């Protein structure tokens, strides 16, 4: 269960988000829409513990993130959330397999290789497991990013314009993979997007306008 109450984020004098209050149903899938600058990425960053709110309360699986130190927040980010970014955010000098293994290593979880290979296999990347991600196509890189995001079976999957750098066919494929995997894990999924096609895939929508939630 993810609960946010009166989340506000400001950068200096710039008001970026909020107040926003949310209560996300576990296992539900959401499309997060809104115009550029409406605060989508900021909200995802707060929910994914990439950033801390200027004020308000955020609880992830019953844990209030306020007051957590950097290590504890990082642990929440690592274990409870999986993030898929528009530009993949892979380590280009590691192979696809190693990129998927990184979360296991960082979390101190042994035996991650079996699951990493299994994930890559399911995402059609078995043959590319030992290629450096810098050498993979955009679609392949995004699939590796998906595999990495779900590697530790997070309860919350966040995707920020996951198809923004991909052609529509590859984008659809990636979206299928993200939703299927989230469904398998029973994870809550939030996909921030500008694309009406992507947004149309989701029954539940969150819409931001000028930093405030207008549809939930």
């Amino acid at each position, binding site marked *: 269960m993810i609960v946010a109450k009166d989340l506000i984020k400001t950068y200096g004098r710039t008001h970026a988000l909020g107040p926003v209050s949310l209560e996300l149903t576990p296992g539900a899938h959401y499309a997060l829409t809104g115009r550029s600058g409406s605060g989508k990425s900021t909200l995802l960053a707060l929910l994914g513990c990439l950033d801390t709110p200027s004020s308000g309360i955020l609880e992830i699986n019953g844990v209030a993130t306020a007051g957590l130190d950097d290590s504890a927040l*990082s642990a929440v980010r*690592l274990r409870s959330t999986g993030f898929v970014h528009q530009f993949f955010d892979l380590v280009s000098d590691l192979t696809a397999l190693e990129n998927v293994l990184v979360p296991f290593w960082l979390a101190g979880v042994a035996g991650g290789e079996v699951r990493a290979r299994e994930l890559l296999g399911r995402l059609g990347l078995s043959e590319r497991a030992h290629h450096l991600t810098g050498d993979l196509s955009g679609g392949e890189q995004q699939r590796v990013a998906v595999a990495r995001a779900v590697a530790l079976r997070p309860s919350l999957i966040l995707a920020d314009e996951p198809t923004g750098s991909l052609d529509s066919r590859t984008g659809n494929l990636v979206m299928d993979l993200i939703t299927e995997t989230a469904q398998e894990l029973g994870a809550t999924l939030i996909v921030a997007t500008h694309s009406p096609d992507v947004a149309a895939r989701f029954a539940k929508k969150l819409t931001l306008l000028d930093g405030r939630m207008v549809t939930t």
Partner: protein
Amino acid sequence: MLLAMGSANLRVLDSLKEADGSSKRSLWNSPTSQSGETGGTRRIWRARRGQLTTAAFDHCLTFMPSGVRCLGLTVRQTRDVWREDAKKRNALPTVTLVAVAGSPFEVISPMISPALVPFKSYFRHAPVATFNDPDLTGGRSQDHHVLIDHDSSSFGGHDSIEASVDREISFDAAEKILDQIEDGFGDEALRVDPDAEFEARKNLTASYRLNLSILGLMSVLVSGLLLRNTAALQMMLRRPVVAVLRQTGASRRTIMGLVLSEQILIAVAGCAAGIVGGLLLEQAISHQVMKTVRVLYTPDAGNGQRSLLIPIVGATGAGLVVYLASSFAMLRSLVAVQPRDLAAREFEGRERQADAGRVAKGWRMRLAGIALSVAILLIAPTVPPVTSQGNLQVPLFGYFAAMAIVILAFSAASGASYITTRLLRIFVPEARAHRFPALAISTRRNLHARRRPEAAVATLATGLALVTGISLMVAGFRNSFTAWLAQSFTAEVVALPLITQDGEFRPRLDGDSHNLLRKTMQVDTDCVLLDEGTVRAPGNQSSLKGVPVRVAAIDDALPPDYPTPLETIPWPGTRTSVPNNEILREFMNSEDLFLASEALARKLKLKTGDQVQLGGIKSAGTHNFTGRIAGVVRDYSSELGYLFLSKKSYETRTGLNGCHSLRVYTAGVNAPAFASAVSNRLPEIASRLNIQSSDDLKKMATGTFEQTFKVTGLLTILAAILGGVALIVQIAQSSAGRRLEWLALRRLGSSWTRLTQLLAADVLISVLAGLALGLVCGGIMAWLLVVVINRQAFGWSIAMPGISDLATAVLFAVAYAAALWLAGVIMSWWTMRPGKAWEVLRE
């Protein structure tokens, strides 16, 4: 740093050159008609630190009524002597000022050497007359002298004071007077043997200059690296801006113009700051270094004003060229990339499997670099040195070989990095990667990376090679020198005669007195007669193969319970089956055998068994002396070397008997007890000898050795710091280039602590690789210094360092690497630090 190191090096080198050129030998022409029973005794003193005060000179002058003549000697920089507006200041010679009072010269002030007459109009005070140098020096000093009346001058002090007692006064009375003068000087004055000091100084400055030259060369290289790395770092940080400009349509030329203009502004500002900072740092470095140089060599060394124009122009010019050329090269490669790729993480889009990255790009060039370096190093010992104008041996190819080590470090850096990473990877296999995630990620990333941290590795390796190589060489030299001292001075006592005889220049104990000493005291002695062109009149020097040589005649004392004082070393032609003492005994009882010291044998390419003709030893009417080389002996007393012959043979040919120095085997009696015994039984002989403990002499010699290399050590450490700074900048550059990677890991769930661990692991790989490569290169550098450079330049062999020396060098290297690792992590953290930069990246 470049300016500071370069300028400090130049300052020390100039001072040492000046020290070499300024003989402190006695200026006083020896009495020409006296016997051992009359006086003519003289002494020279110098200050333990700095200069002897004018009060000390005045104290000497108070003995004038007792028949004492005093000279105060001061080597001066030109500015102190010449007029401010002297137009030809750069061409004006360095002069030795001689303060005179009550001397046989009727001096008003000042009088000059005839060689200084062309410069007469440039003196601050117009000279009133010239004097004949040989009247003052006996032709034994090539310095330009200016005689100044002590009372009418403004001396701050004197480098040395020389006192000579009238020849009409008996020796004993003269010695008493000189003792009183010496007592009045107190502890600050040190009595010196002028010839020995001059020789020692010349030897030490030669090795010193050699080390400093290598250091200077390496410092310039490391400074160049530092500038190159800084330029590369700046280009790396500008990559996003360049990407945006390229994507918005700016041409390559426009971007080049913009960025280079900015770089020029930065370079000019950097030069201005560098000149100020460099000069301040140079002052601090020179202050420390010159303290030692002044104690050891010339008390006022480096005091004079000197032109800073050349160091400033040289350092800033070189720095500007390296910085701007590096910026240009890096920028050109940046703008050559297509705008789309420039914005991406990697410049190259070529698809490859991970394992393809194992052999880094440019391996052929690297292999060629390694092969070239190894080839240069292998042939270095066989390439003879170049003989310079001053008949000095310059190991030119040895210097090339030192540069080859730098090439080797750069060529092998990628391989060293790969091997180190591979080895570390063994500790973090898949099954254990979760326990050491930072190391697991770093090793894998480094194995796949297109660009390994080779510049950082090479920079560290170069710095370490310098530090390790020189420290190992010094350790080996110390071992050899100490062993040689121990072998040469097994006798408990050393006695140095105080009286000059019959127109000779070096004090000598006559043969009868020597025999009486041995017989009465029942001791064995190694009695040595020397001829360095100073025993007899100049121009009557011994020569071998047309080259002036110094001759040492030694007697046949080989006391049974003591090791032999000379050690024959393996040499072409030597019969290895013959023991050392047998060779020595055969030599000492022969009239036509020579022993050559190693330096001389190398210089003249002598082999054991060679027949050689010794010219100049014919004062007794004999012909030139032909003999055979019986062996080559170890000898660190002089880089010029000695030719040893038996004293019997020497006495027969020259008529010269007795000893110029004695080693006395007292069967365990120490020096004070022996001196007391000699005073009781042979008081007259005792008064003519300066009896010292061998141990004291050895301590003094090793003290001088340590003092000499202390400065080398200081400059080496500064060079190492310079290399360290270069390395840290390189690491920071690498870290800056990987900001997106850090961001990805941060987003994934890496805490700042974890990211710091990642940085630490990354820097660790570079440092370990650099440490390993540096130690190997340091070993090679030590070998090169010992086997090629020192051997060719000075002619003597130095033992390779022992295990404990190696362990010390490794410990130092590890400590140095650890410090750099810590500094590297901090610098990387600073480059990757959280803050605005992260927010920009995130947005």
